[in-house]
């Protein structure tokens, strides 16, 4: 990660490069126009989600008298329905509990594992590091059937613990891998100084390494949070009763009744379910990006 930072700095050092050679009209066609198209396509579904969520039902299906792209009489009726007539608040709460629980467990466990692999360098540490990376590549689609069986046998079926305990399977490998990369950038000398002063390994981890790796911890935490907020297949398989569902599962299975699709409240549900991650993401964009690209680059 330090390497990446220095090389970016180097790029910024002789900023511009040969940019002055291309003139504005050419840039307009080769850069700004495609960028505008990309932005439009990537963001339109969000606009469409928002506009549908505040559109009254009679406007929603009447394309003759109302332009579908705009809303004439915005309404909060769908949102009200969502908050007061469905289990939506419970789903939000469940998702929050499961996400926070799984994230905290994963980050704590991963810090210990990453420190152990990267700094204690026990026999076979390199192999363990590689195995952890491979574990990240095992997709939930392969594991959900045997896990469902286990969850049922352990008596966790239809409870939050089923999710809190299974989400770390895809969070720990990722967080460990990320933190390993981060710990690698902390100079050994700092640890050696602390060792000379008589600190134990535990003290070194808590008082030297952790304060220095706060950005890495935030990156891992943010990524773990969004990954578990977005998880679907485990939540769909392990949870049955409506009040225990998470937002993605609840919106899909409870708001869609028979053939009548309540598009307004579906979109409101999708919008509000996305907001927590989007808000968190907007505060920590750089951490998120660095964890995403860091995991690929290491």
């Amino acid at each position: 990660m330090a390497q990446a930072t220095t090389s970016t700095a180097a790029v910024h050092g002789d900023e511009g490069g040969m940019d002055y050679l291309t003139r504005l009209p050419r840039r307009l066609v080769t850069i700004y126009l495609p960028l505008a198209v990309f932005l439009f396509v990537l963001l339109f579904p969000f606009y469409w989600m928002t506009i549908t969520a505040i559109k009254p039902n009679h406007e929603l299906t009447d394309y003759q008298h109302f332009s579908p792209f705009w809303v004439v009489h915005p309404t909060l009726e769908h949102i009200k329905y969502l908050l007061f007539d469905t289990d939506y608040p419970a789903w939000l709460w469940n998702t929050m509990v499961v996400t926070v629980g799984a994230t905290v467990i994963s980050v704590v466990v991963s810090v210990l594992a990453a420190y152990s692999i990267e700094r204690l360098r026990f026999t076979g540490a390199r192999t363990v590091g590689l195995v952890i990376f491979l574990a990240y590549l095992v997709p939930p689609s392969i594991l959900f059937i045997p896990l469902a069986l286990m969850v049922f046998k352990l008596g966790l079926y239809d409870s939050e613990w089923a999710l809190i305990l299974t989400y770390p399977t895809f969070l720990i490998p990722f967080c460990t891998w990320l933190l390993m990369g981060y710990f690698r950038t902390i100079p050994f000398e700092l640890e050696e100084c602390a060792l000379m002063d008589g600190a134990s390994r535990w003290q070194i981890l808590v008082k030297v390494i952790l304060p220095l790796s706060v950005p890495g911890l935030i990156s891992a935490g943010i990524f773990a949070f969004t990954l578990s907020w977005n998880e679907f297949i485990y939540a769909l398989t392990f949870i049955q009763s409506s009040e225990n569902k998470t937002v993605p599962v609840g919106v899909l299975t409870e708001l869609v009744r028979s053939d009548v699709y309540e598009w307004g409240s579906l979109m409101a549900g999708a919008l509000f379910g996305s907001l927590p991650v989007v808000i968190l993401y907007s505060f920590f964009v750089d951490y998120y990006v660095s964890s995403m690209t860091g995991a690929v680059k290491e």
Partner: protein
Amino acid sequence: MSQSAVLRRAPKRSGFSKLLENRNVLGLLFLFPAAAFLLVFLTYPLGLGVWLGFTDAQIGRSGTFIGLENYRYLISDSVFRLVVFNTILYTVVASVIKFALGLWLALILNEKLPFKAFFRAIILLPWVVPTVLSAIAFWWIYDAQFSIISYSLIHLGLIDHPINFLGDPTLARASVIAANIWRGIPFVAITLLAGLQTISPSLYEAATLDGAGSWQRFRHVTLPMLTPIIAVVMTFSVIFTFTDFQLIYVLTRGGPVNATHLLATLSFQRAIPGGHLGEGAAIAISMIPFLLAAIMFSYFGMQRRRWQQGGRD
């Protein structure tokens, strides 16, 4: 063993602290929680899944060993063969387009732009938002009657009746692939952008002085420098796409006439609502050879990158 023997012989306190100074003991102690989690909830289920694939287990009834029966049945099952074809088609088409468009977007973002950080932040939104929730938005966009795409095209006079996006097999395939591409482009673009930013501008200047045009600069400077990271990014992308479940489950549930069923959705359908755990597990396990191939690809990509950078092992 020998360590605990040391512990017994030596005076208790110093022996214990000596034990804690041993990096192997301490290393394993620190590694234990992660290892326990992964062994219990990842390695064991993986093994259990392989075992289930060889049994006729149903929901509520543990199965007996039936050897390769499930696999033999699946190979003769025309639905399964169609689904393997669908999955490969879905993965190949979506990955190729994601790569092309993602690389293009990364190249655009690598130019000098005002508000670059802002653009980068909002471009990642489709990747950050829960797939299921954005897929629900796409469901509405693809609605047979009220699709906004149909409306716009009719308005522009290009077509005269709404497109049945998810009702027609070919269109349904194209539609789910389009939604997958929409979600995947940001990941490919932003990670490749990070790779592009590490390429020094002086390389391009040198190439230009040697008379290279913009295509030649791309072909002979950008691509070779980017190859290792492309290998890793695309491996991730291929794995995510190949094992995709959410998008299909929301948009089509595998229909119409199984045209969009993928291995993951078929496995879910047979195992959970269908109750045939053994058969579902066998379908899930049959994804592993493909994933292994992708992982090998990624591994060698990284070796090459290390070697290029002259790093250790």
